[in-house]
């Protein structure tokens, strides 16, 4: 067993940092050392920010987004188009769409996709809440912005089936060639989908 080179507080900090995505034990050590060296400039504000986040951040009761206010900033924004709901699997997808600035609508975060292998069923996702929202008279369109994977699209079809009696148009994202994508390096499935969904030029 290797000898400890630092006190338990530092070891604990390193262990916790190593749990963050993208950080392994080695990079967690570097981050811990950096924080310790920059106690006043970085560590103290970071600790304060974490404390505030822990206290204030919650899951939006309407859409499942995370924010420091409830309903979240997106749901509370009156300028957004309330007739369109963009359904995403995860908060990270919501943030990605917001970065793109392509749609100015409300969102619904499912909390994942149906996955038999991981034991994720409809009851583990916020599908019931989505169906309830979609039945509101002001909602006209539901955009299924789910991953182009078997799990993502199975979830999309499942939701489409449930929304059949709602008075909404259900749409999904197009599948095809990404910006900057070179045909030579694309997989056959993406190319076939792109050809099937070609548009007039």
């Amino acid at each position, binding site marked *: 067993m290797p000898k400890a080179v630092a006190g338990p507080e530092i070891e604990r900090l390193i262990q916790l940092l190593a749990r963050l*995505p*993208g950080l392994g034990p080695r990079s967690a050590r570097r981050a811990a050392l950096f924080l310790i060296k920059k106690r006043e400039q970085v560590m103290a504000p970071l600790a304060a920010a974490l404390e505030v986040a822990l206290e204030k951040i919650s899951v939006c009761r309407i859409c499942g987004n995370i924010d420091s206010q409830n309903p979240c900033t997106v749901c509370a924004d009156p300028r957004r188009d309330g007739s369109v709901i963009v359904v995403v699997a995860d908060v990270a997808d919501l943030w990605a769409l917001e970065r793109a600035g392509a749609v100015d609508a409300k969102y619904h975060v499912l909390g994942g996709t149906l*996955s*038999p*292998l*991981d034991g994720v*069923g*409809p009851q583990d996702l916020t599908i019931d809440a989505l169906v309830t929202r979609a039945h509101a008279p002001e909602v006209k369109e539901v955009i299924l912005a789910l991953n*182009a*994977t*078997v799990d993502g*699209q*199975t979830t999309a*079809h*499942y939701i*489409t*089936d449930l929304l059949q009696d709602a008075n909404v148009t259900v749409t999904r994202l197009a*599948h095809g060639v990404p910006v900057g994508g070179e045909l030579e390096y694309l*997989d*056959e*499935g*993406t190319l*076939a*989908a792109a050809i*099937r969904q070609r548009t007039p030029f």
Partner: protein
Amino acid sequence: MEWTDEGIVLGVRRHGEANAIAEVMTVEHGRHLGLVRGGAGSRLRPILQPGNAVRVTWRARLDEHLGHYTVEGLQLSAAAFLSVPHALYGLAHLCALMRLLPERDPHPGLHAALSRILETLGEPRAAAVAIARFELRMLAELGFGLDLETCAATGTREDLVYVSPKSGRAVSRAAGAPWEDKLLRLPAFLVRESERAPSGEELAQAFALTGHFLSRNVLEPRGTSLPPERAQFLAAVARAVPAA
């Protein structure tokens, strides 16, 4: 330990930031799992989709280890199913059926049957026929095969239209007439090839038959029930195939 085999991806579970654990139905090594380095990355994710045919090389220090897979895509069918609801539900149901098999137990016949089904999965009637037959075959592979060759009461091989829900044996029309409402229907396409495409009603009868024995003999003893994807597949097929 090292081997190379062909297989069909049944599922993928993310493992950490960049890696994934792939579940593959291989020809000679059965349902086998392995860690794929970079499996969560953009290069391998299109390949590691359920339904895709792949060539895998598995390496581990000991046979009982999880081991590492190196994966090469052979036939990437999954993308063609993404916009077809019955194909996706059918695929999910097939993968759930394959998970009834013990790990690392070779079933080359089931692998071959699964490969053939994937070729027809896009067409709802053909997919339903193939999956109903596959369920029958799965029952047989698990040791609960039905005897659909001769009548349980008279021994005749002609006009077999019922199956006993207790014994799983076929019953002829004449012998089964008094118990018609208690017997399961046996649609002809389950026992022999026919030029005539089965109707939606016959497909429903076939799935009622296989569903009964799958539930009673395989799933209930394990404390589970028929996967919801099966019901969704049947609903999608019923929408696409006329009942009569």
